[in-house]
Each structure stands twice: as structure tokens, then as C-alpha cells.
């Protein structure tokens, strides 16, 4: 449903071109198949810190990375997850070659421009990002506590992508250089070009600008044993007003069996007003202030999660029981025909709406790269939709029964500081690195 042409350059760079001439815009999107899961203990946060360094300017970019592209009318950003790092720019069509040149220059010639001074300043920026996005935000440390509890210390999802401050402070510019050499090269990257551009011209630019960058060393895939479902009750005191309950289970990896079924189960259970828990916990009885669920899909294994914030004076135990009761019902009876039909319509509509933007996070170029990096083909868009359209009530029922054992949940109660009695009974204080 996103027509494309894919070719692989001699140096291993996958190049995907999608033409869409509705707007005079071009999206350039580049994925490196590296994330915090490729880090080693002691140097956590390096993948994300490195993403920041990519915006400081490469050898032939004396004006930095942002300035030439902003001046050209472009919008640009990047992001790092446990699994991958992506970079994108959306530019007026005339600036497509500039955007590609900028990406190529930093893929091939970043290190000569990477000075100790730039590195030091950017490390401070990242420490401030950590403060702003996690440390100084209500409930902001919850996933740090959960990841450390659920994943063993040597599992690559044990540590947060933002990294530990101690590790960030210990990281050197030499670490960053080594990281670049190991992971930032054509063989570990996927380039998507989408928009108002001639297909052959786009391939020509890609070949001319990226073709002479050396292939780089092969990157060994990261593997890890799946996390085990274990019953545990954790508690975290935080500067919050209302207690919140997190319930998590290890679940199948991105695009694995049951991944789509659990995604749909999350919606049926707790997302939006048509969900079961919205009716019981919010609409009818006003016991929850906030509610949501997700199959948080990742490459090496996922976490299924239900999150509910208690209304004032409602015990978290009441929320826990309501969630478990709904899980038990889904695991026994499955979704109704209406629920599944609604989820089918929503899937169709969601996939259609994903075709609306060329670039940016989640735009067409980003999706082509996601499917290419994770599944080896940008054409997986169609298969991805089919995963949802083919689901039966039995699929959803069985997935819930298989993965969401109420007796094997990890729970985290986040309570206002000093109010530990508001946590689920028998919860122990979460210990994790801050």
C-alpha cells in the first residue's frame, strides 16, 4: 500500500524510494539498526547520547547540522529506542539533495568533527533531558524500576535508553568514536526517500552521495533469553498526587505470534471509551482517574502493560481486581463479535491514516524503514495490516490466556511520598539505579 523500489548499494546500504507527488516535499529518513540494546553495562545511554552527537555537524558541515537544513525550510529530528536509532528531515522538494548530502556527510565523516568540547556539552544536554523527561516528571521513574525488575542485569532491556547518570559521566569521546565505528555505517543502515522526486534521480543521488562510504564491520544480532513471567509486587514513592498501578507481563516480540492479538486485547481491555475497563472503572463507578493498556512491542521481547491511576480514596487493590477480572474474562470468553469488528475497522482506518504524512516520526518514509529493518522488506506494510484483519476471537482469547497469567504479574504501585500504605499489600520498595 506504499509503492516503493528498493535497491542495495555495493556497500550494503539499503535504499528505498517511494514517489508521492501530491505535495512539493521530500522526506529523507535514515535508520541505523542500533539502540540501547547494543550497549554494555557501564556505558548505558551511549546510543542515545550518540544520536545527539550526530546533530553537532560533520567534517564538511562547519555550520552544524541544523542550520543549513532549517535555512532550506526543512524540519528535522531523530530518536533512539532500545532497538534502533532514526533520523529524519522533511524538506521542500528542491532541497532533497541537500538533505541527502547532510546525512551522507555525517555517515561518512562525523568523527573528524567530533571534538571533546562538543562531546562534553552534549553530555550535559542529555543529563538535562533525563532530568526533564524522567527525574522531574510525575511517575517518570516507573519504567526504570519495572525494566530493572523484569529483565535480568545482563539483559539488554534491563537499563533505560536514556542511560544512568554515572555511566553517562564515565563515557568518553573515545567510547563515542568506537560506537560510531561499530554501528554507523552503510551495512547497518536503511535509507528511505519519499515524496516529490523522480525515482531514478533519487537512486542516483543515493549512489553518488553514499556509495563511496566504506561498508563497515558486520554487526552481530543481539540476542537474549526471554524474560520470565514472575509474580512480584513493587512500590515506588514519588512526588505525585494520586497513586497509580502498573501491571506488566513479558510478551511476544514485535511481529511475533500473538503480538497483534495482544495489541487488540489492550484496546478492548483499557483503551478509549469503548473499552471494558473504561466502562467499569471510569464510566460506571469513577474509580480510576486515568486508564490505558499497551502491547509495548520490541525486537527481543515485549511487555504487555495495563496502567491505571486511582481516583481519590480508591485503593489500588480495587483496580488490580478489576483488571484481573477482565483479563480472566477475556482469557475465557474472548472478545465479542462487535469488539473484534470494531478493532478491524479501526485497524483499517489507522493504516490509512498512516499514509497521510511523508516524513517525520511515523510518516511513510519512517514506516518503510521500520519494515525493512525489522522484517527485511518494506512491503511488510500489507502483511502488518493483514495480521490485524485476520484475527479471530479465538486468537485474542488464546493470546490473553497464554501470556497474561493473573498469578504471574509484575505490579508497581507508585504512591505519594510518605504514603506507602497506599501501595498494593505486600509490595516491596523497588530498587533501581538512578
Amino acid at each position, binding site marked *: 500500500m506504499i509503492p516503493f523500489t528498493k535497491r542495495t548499494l555495493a556497500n550494503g546500504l539499503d535504499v528505498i524510494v517511494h514517489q508521492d507527488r501530491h505535495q512539493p516535499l521530500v522526506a529523507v529518513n535514515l535508520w541505523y539498526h542500533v539502540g540501547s540494546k547494543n550497549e554494555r553495562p557501564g556505558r548505558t545511554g551511549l546510543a542515545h547520547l550518540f544520536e545527539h552527537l550526530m546533530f553537532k555537524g560533520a567534517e564538511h558541515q562547519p555550520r552544524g547540522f541544523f542550520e543549513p537544513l532549517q535555512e532550506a525550510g526543512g524540519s528535522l529530528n531523530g530518536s533512539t529506542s532500545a532497538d534502533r536509532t532514526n533520523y529524519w528531515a522533511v524538506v521542500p522538494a528542491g532541497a532533497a539533495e541537500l538533505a541527502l548530502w547532510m546525512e551522507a556527510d555525517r555517515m561518512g565523516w562525523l568523527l573528524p568533527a567530533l571534538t571533546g568540547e562538543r562531546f562534553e556539552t552534549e553530555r550535559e544536554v542529555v543529563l538535562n533531558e533525563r532530568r*526533564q523527561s524522567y527525574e522531574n516528571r510525575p511517575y517518570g521513574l516507573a519504567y526504570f524500576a519495572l525494566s530493572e525488575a523484569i529483565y535480568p542485569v545482563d539483559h539488554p532491556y534491563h537499563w533505560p535508553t536514556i542511560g544512568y547518570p554515572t555511566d553517562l559521566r564515565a563515557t568518553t569521546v573515545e567510547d563515542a568514536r568506537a560506537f560510531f565505528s561499530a554501528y554507523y555505517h552503510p551495512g547497518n543502515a536503511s535509507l528511505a526517500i519519499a515524496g516529490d522526486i523522480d525515482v531514478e534521480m533519487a537512486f542516483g543521488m543515493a549512489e553518488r552521495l553514499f556509495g563511496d562510504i566504506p561498508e563497515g564491520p558486520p554487526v552481530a544480532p543481539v540476542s537474549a533469553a526471554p524474560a520470565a513471567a514472575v509474580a512480584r509486587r513493587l512500590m515506588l514513592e514519588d512526588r505525585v498526587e494520586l497513586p497509580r498501578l502498573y501491571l506488566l507481563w513479558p510478551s511476544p516480540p514485535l511481529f511475533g505470534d500473538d503480538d497483534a492479538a495482544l495489541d487488540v486485547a489492550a484496546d478492548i481491555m483499557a483503551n478509549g471509551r469503548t473499552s471494558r475497563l473504561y466502562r467499569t472503572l471510569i464510566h460506571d463507578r469513577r474509580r480510576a482517574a486515568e486508564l490505558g493498556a499497551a502491547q509495548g512491542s520490541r525486537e527481543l521481547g515485549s511487555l504487555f502493560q495495563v496502567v491505571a491511576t486511582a481516583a481519590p480514596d480508591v485503593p489500588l487493590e480495587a483496580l488490580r481486581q478489576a483488571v484481573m477480572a477482565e483479563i480472566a474474562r477475556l482469557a475465557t470468553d474472548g472478545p465479542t463479535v462487535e469488539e473484534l469488528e470494531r478493532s478491524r475497522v479501526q485497524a483499517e482506518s489507522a493504516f490509512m491514516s498512516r499514509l497521510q504524512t511523508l516524513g517525520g516520526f511515523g510518516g511513510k518514509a519512517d514506516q518503510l524503514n521500520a519494515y525493512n529493518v525489522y522484517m527485511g522488506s518494506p512491503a511488510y506494510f500489507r502483511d502488518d495490516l493483514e495480521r490485524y484483519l485476520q484475527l479471530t476471537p479465538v486468537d485474542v482469547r488464546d493470546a490473553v490466556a497464554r501470556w497474561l497469567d493473573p498469578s504471574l504479574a509484575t505490579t508497581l504501585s507508585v504512591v505519594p511520598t510518605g504514603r506507602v500504605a497506599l501501595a498494593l499489600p505486600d509490595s516491596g520498595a523497588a530498587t533501581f539505579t538512578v
Partner: protein
Amino acid sequence: MSNRFTPPDPGEPSIVRFPSLQKAALDSGLQVWSIPHTALPVATVALAVPFGSRHDPQDQPGLAGVVADMFDEGAGDRDAIGLAAAFASLGTEISVDIGPDVTTLSLTVLSRCFEPAVELLFDIVARPRFEESDFLRVVEMRLNRLRQLRSSASAIADRALLRGVFGAHPYGHSTFGTTAALEGFSLDDVRACHGRVVTPVGSTCIVAGDVEAGLVQEVVARQARRWSAVASHVAAPAPVVPVDQPPKLWLVHRPGSPQTEVRVGHLGPSRHVDAYHALVTLNAVLGGQFTSRINLNLREARGLTYGAHTGFDFRVAGGAFSCDTAVQADATPLAVREILAEFAAVGGARPAEGDELARAKSSLTRGYVRHFETPAHLAHAAVRLATFGLPEDTFARYVPGVEAVTAADVSAAAVRHVRPSDATIVLVGDGSTWRDALDEFGRTIEEIEDVDPAGGTGE
């Protein structure tokens, strides 16, 4: 290969062509605008109703927000969940966005589901159910939300800045109002407010996307028939223009905060300001984008923050200009000093000129085309035309308007509209280590609690 290491030039600018609006008006007063966009078989429908938190009665801040929340709590034959299910079965959901001046109900839907979606939309505005149980839930959810915001440093700072800049003017509170006011509302208050402000007179229904203009007019005319103007409706009086408040230095002390949320701002002009294009350009130089002065200073040169931004908050009857950032705690006085210095410099010692000005203008003019990619972009752009009563050629005039801005225009705009000595400073963080260093800013330091202190439901 000779130019291998020379960046290509950015090419010809893309021409911005905002599609033409097809306009009609119904007898009820409702305006109906359609905007063609046929890339995909989808359409965005946006209904802009001219009421917002500015229309809250003086003693009832937050009432309009409750009215807005009641929109999707059931209509016609459907209760709240039935309504959500009806939208979901069309593959869409309704979004209700209340601002200071306008409330927008919008949805994006497959073109083939256009009419049933419009039918539901007009059920919402014309046939509200106003059930007591829904009202109680809406109020309770808003109270809970307000309570949650008391533990968010950034939310505390945002609300304090509004109060500091606008004072007692209705723009001085957010759409959430206050805990005390919320606790006093009744369903009759909601009904009365709804009857006063939710009317087709002055409202605009905008459809952008792959639905032919004739069909848009026909379908909206048919579905909007049920929504008639209240006979007693009188045109709202002209909004009161906010007046300058004395500059303050408000400190919300949060022990142990690793960062300080910083807001520095003062009153600004309304969207109708003559110097609009100069102000947009000025903001791009000072703090509107990554490469703007304040971000380069606080983030790129010093590493004190994840980001710092400035913006003009243009509203119907006035506005605000402010800088917002979050900085590491020990850099709080330094950050405030630098922000004030940058405010002063752009209207004085370091005016925007030469390459810097050219780059800012170029990023705005060349980048303008990016803002009209999807039906939702087009519909919400048109909502701004409706909100401010702007002429249809507003988008066409943007690029030439910015291109015509001179260094003298930016300087004049800076002197008039960026005024460090008039700026209120809001700091939310652990003041124990830097409070004493704030004297240099020449303002009386007032330690305040949240501008919305806990109401009766707290423990």
C-alpha cells in the same frame, strides 16, 4: 567529484498553494467551508465554535471547559459510550479541543463514512443529553486532572505565567479553571453556559479532504438543520483587551527538584497586530527554532537545558510573549539572566540583521509549504482563519509578507513587543540554593504556592 564535500544549494523554493475555500452560509448562521484535497480518500471535519475559557463567567473559571467536555458525553439517542462506539464503528473518534477563544470539534474519517460522521457531529452540538451522572463524572475527572497537575512542575509554571501575565483577565486562567470553582458548578450552570455560547451563529464547519464541494454543502446543510440559533441569542460583546500587569518574580519552591522550570513573559499583541510577519521573523531569530539565539545560548553553548523556546501566544483580544525552558537547578539565576539579556539584545545591542536575519526568513518562507500536507493541516489552518476572522488570502500573503520584513522592522517589533523590564519571571524548583541570587532581577520575590491551591477534596 570536485564538489563532493560542498553542500548542494537548497534549490528553488516550493510554491505554497493553499487550496481555494468554497464558502457558504446556512440560514442558522453556520458557515460551511470546504477545501479540496484528494491525495487519499479521507476527510477532516472541524467544527469551530467561538467559545473558550475567555467566556467563563468571572466567578466560574473552568465552566466552558466543562461544557466542552460534555460534548462527547452522549447526544440524541446515544449515551457517552454509545456515541464513542458509533464513531469507532466509522473508524474514527471525535476530538474536542477547547482553547481560550475557540472550541474545535474535529475528526478524520474515510470519505465513504463522511455523512454518518457529520450526522454524529451535529447530534453532539444540537442534541446534548446533559445527564447528571455524566456531569458528575466530567467534573470529577477535571478535579482529578487539576490535582495531578499540582505535582507537575511544568504545568505549575505554565499556569502561574498565565496568571502573572494576564492577571484577573479571563485569559489569566487555563481551560481547567480552579478547583474551588469546579467544585461549585451545577448541571444548570452547564446548560446555561451551553445555551449562551454553543450556537451556529459565528460557528464554522470546515471540511478538508476528498469530498466534493457540492456534497459537503449538501450534507452539512442536511445534518446541521437540527442545530438552530437560539432566538434570544445576542451577539457576544467585544472581548475585553487585557492590560499590562506589573512584572513579578514568582517562586514556587519544590524541594529536591533537579531542574527549575523557568518562564519569562509579558503581555503581547493579538493576532491582528500589524507587525505580524515581523514578529514571526523576530521569534524565529530569538527562540522559535532550534538554531534560535536562546537555544544556542542555553543548550548548545552551555548545556544547561534540553531546550529553550520563545513564542507569541496570539489570541483574539490580546496575547502573550514568553520564553520557556527547564534548566539544571544550579543554573537557575544564570538562565534567567541570559534570557533577559537576549530579550534586551535583540531590540538593542545585537539586532537581527545580515545573514542571521536572512536565515530566519528563509527557514520561514521555504518551510511554509510543510504546514499544509494533510487534510487535518488544512482544516486546522482554516480554523485559525475562522477564529481570528482573517481574510482568505492570509496564507497566500505569508511568504511575501515575511520576505518583505527588514532589519528595521524586526528591531521596531522587538523594541515594542519584547520588553525584558516588563517580564514576569516564574521559577518552579528548589529555591534553597539560588533564591538569594535573584535580587539582581530587581523584582520583589514572592514565594507562592500553586496558583490553584488544593481545594476541599484534598486530604
